[in-house]
């Protein structure tokens, strides 16, 4: 994987995590489920890569973590969007659309 590819993917993953947590706190597996439901099973070849991304977002203050109980009364670490994270999401989604649209246009034109 090239560096650019990795950065692009990381940016996309960050955005997906923020979106997954929008309106509802989830644990790591819940975030993964949310992403899989919408993108199919193949986006994250290694599920483990989700966690460094989560912790980095927490470090930036865009999400915050706390231990709680999940639906089947199991202990789990839940992540919730902070106000700052919500603002980021609101700003990044249109930017992402504009970016991907531009890239697709360019690639489509070439093809």
């Amino acid at each position, binding site marked *: 994987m090239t560096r650019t590819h990795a950065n692009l993917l990381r940016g996309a993953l960050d955005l997906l995590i923020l979106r997954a947590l929008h309106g509802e706190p989830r644990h790591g*597996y819940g975030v993964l489920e949310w992403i899989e439901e919408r993108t199919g099973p193949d986006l994250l*070849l290694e599920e*483990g*890569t989700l*966690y460094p991304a989560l*912790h980095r977002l*927490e*470090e930036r203050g865009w999400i915050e973590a706390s231990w709680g109980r999940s639906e089947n009364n199991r202990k789990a*670490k839940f992540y919730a969007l902070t106000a700052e994270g919500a603002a980021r999401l609101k700003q990044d989604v249109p930017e992402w659309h504009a970016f991907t649209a531009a890239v697709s246009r360019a690639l489509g034109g070439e093809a």
Partner: protein
Amino acid sequence: MIPRDPTSDVDREIEDHIERRTAALVARGMSETEARSEARARFGDRGRVRAECVRIQRRRRRRSEFRTLVASCLEDGLSALRGFRHRPAFTALAVGTLALGMGATAGVFSVVHAVLLRPLPFPQPEGLHRVVTADRPTGVPVAPAAVTVWSEASPLWTDVAAFSPVRTALTGPDVPRILDGWRASASLFGALGVDFARGRSFGPTDDRPGAAPVVVLSHRVWQRDLAGADIRGRSVALDGVDHEIVGVLPPSFDLERATPDFVVPLALPPEQWTNPTPWLGVLIRLGPDAPPAAVADELRRRAETAGLDAGDGPSPRLATRPLADVLTEGLGSPLWLLLGAVGALLLIGCVNVANLLLARGTRRADELALRAALGAGRGRIVRHLLAESLLLGVLGALAALPLAALVAQGIRVLAPAGIPRIQEAGMDVATLGVTLLLGVVTALVAGVLPAVRAGRTDVHGVLKRGSGRLAGTPGGEGLRSALVVAEIALCLLLLGGAGLLIRSAHALSQVDRGFQEQVLTARLAVPASRYPALDDALRALDDVRAAAAGVPGVRSVEYTSRVPLAGNSFGLPVAPAFAPDDTEPVGQPRMRIATPGYFEAMGLRLVDGRLPGPTDDVEGNVAVVVNHPLARDLARELGDDASVVGSSIVARGGDFTDGSGAYRQWTVIGVVEGVRDDGLRAEAPAELYFLPRAVPPAPWNWIGREVLLTVALEGPGVDGAALRSAVSSVAPELALHDVETMAQRLAASLAVERLVRLVMTVLAVLGVMLAAGGIVGVVASFVARRIPEVGLRMALGASGARVTGEVVRRLLTPVVLGVATGLLVLRLAAPILGELLFDVGPADPLTLLGTTGVVGAVAVLAAWIPARRAARVDPIRSLTRD
């Protein structure tokens, strides 16, 4: 959330993920084992994920802890600042006291640093030594023959350089300017480690008699007199002789008078290199690991092998001494003493501030107890108080900076001329750093005890007692007494030191100088370049004498090679004429050339025999005058019944032989009183006086044909300009230099100790004032806390005088302890103090008794003022105050 244990937190999270994925796979129909291994596979490299997550969490924790610390320090600082704003008097007093002590200390430190601590600006300065003896610690004259044997290669040293001071006039279109230079062997530059940025060193052909004259200029002369012009192909006229400028020394080699204005080759004729008469200064560059003792042994061994006096006879043994020590000779003790004294002043200030903080802590006991009750930990309270004192210290240090610059400047202005590098003292990086460090250290010293004590405040006690006013917080008494002990001890130290110096100065003023102070002296050179024949030079000197004698107010004009206090001169081994040549000489008296009338003009008293007359000053005459110390040494050799006057002596110098090679015999015609030639502290050294025309010509060359005119005055003074014009009327090319009276020379020789005495006295006065203020503060706060008790006792019938007496008496123990401590420390400082004292012991009973009396009186007075207030308490009001 920041997990307390990031590793287990991350492990649990990952485990949870794998469990959930396994469960989901099982729900889709996989077997448990299959599902678990599939879940693990999908997760990927668990170790890497775990490590990365833990790393991120650890980083988060570090940053967060740092932010908390900064925030709480900032909070402490801000709250301390707010506190200061509400107590401007307390703050100004504390900051001012600290600034005074720190400013003085930093100022003196800048001088100590500039003069003593900084290494000399030469490469590997520690390897650069002078050849000395115990009684000539700043350099002993060495025979050229010794330099010859020392110059042969040795594993113990790399370079041996010989030099001799020379004074010449830089002649040019303007008025001639006198330069102090060195004649030196070419090895000088190698020994010093000069890296010539401009020009070159002396070549092997330069250092030979008859070679084309060359000169190396110092940076200061090159800048001042040649405006830093290109030196290639340039020459300067020294005493009218053109010298090609071959090089310029780097600016770092300008050390006031310690380094020469210029260097010319020594250019000794080959036969001179076997001359056993000592007259050269020697610099030696030791090998990197050579032990100085081994070097000295080898120097002596070689000198002895060559049949030279290696200083094992009556004269002390040769040794080497680092150049840095030689250049700062006599400065170490006074400067360290001053630093110690300002340090004592700073400590008094420190104790005062500690007491202020303590008193304030007591007043704030309620506030602190409340804080503690509300959950502030002891550490939090201590930190809060420490932040406060730290801020006081830093503010004090900032306020001290201008004061330090002022003190350094004051010392620079008051310091006598010629102390190497003292003019570079100022606010350099080291001084700045030391000032700030002092601020922090002082703050901690002053703040730590009060803070710790406040942190130990007994919450229940204070809150229960109402406000603790009845008895004060327990434990404060001992600490306050300790502060009083410290104040008294430091105060006694300063006052005792100043007292001893003043007593010593008085003793010095009573010393018999042995010479007239109201004699004007002036340097005058009659260089060989202008008067190749010595006769012409002597005639020119006589013309100058005659012309100057005509100036109004002048009684007589004589001259000598050296006046008293003018520094070392050549030593000549002397023995009775009957003693065989291989016996030890009776001593190495200082050689003087003086006109017959000099003795009377300078006020040297005749002890025995007669003074020379004009008829004695002729070529071939053998009359000499000895001084009393030399006569004493001679008398020991001659035996009891023989008289020194009329006896024959020889001077064992190569230039003092007659045609057959035997030493010339001289007849002692008179004995004069000895003169304290090395300053008033040192005993008079032995001296031997020759008459100008009777002495062989060679010594005239040793002294560079330079004499000191001694002008005896009729009235209080004489017009220097008139004297100069009288001289130039008979010899326009000659000029007088360094015109000063013997009184001025004497003052200059005492300048360092006058400076030390002045500064010490100022410090002692400041110290007494500060200490008195501090004691007033301690007693006042003690009394303030006792007011209800005092009121009660007065209501029960105690008299006011009795109450006052009791308060003052309570101070007795700390005062006695303080005096004892002070006396003890003064005793420990005796070695360094003793070096500066004359005829007064460091334990001089009169001074110590007086000092103790003054300190005791000040302490009692300082206690009495607040105590009297206590006695005026109105019992009713004090008891109902709460």
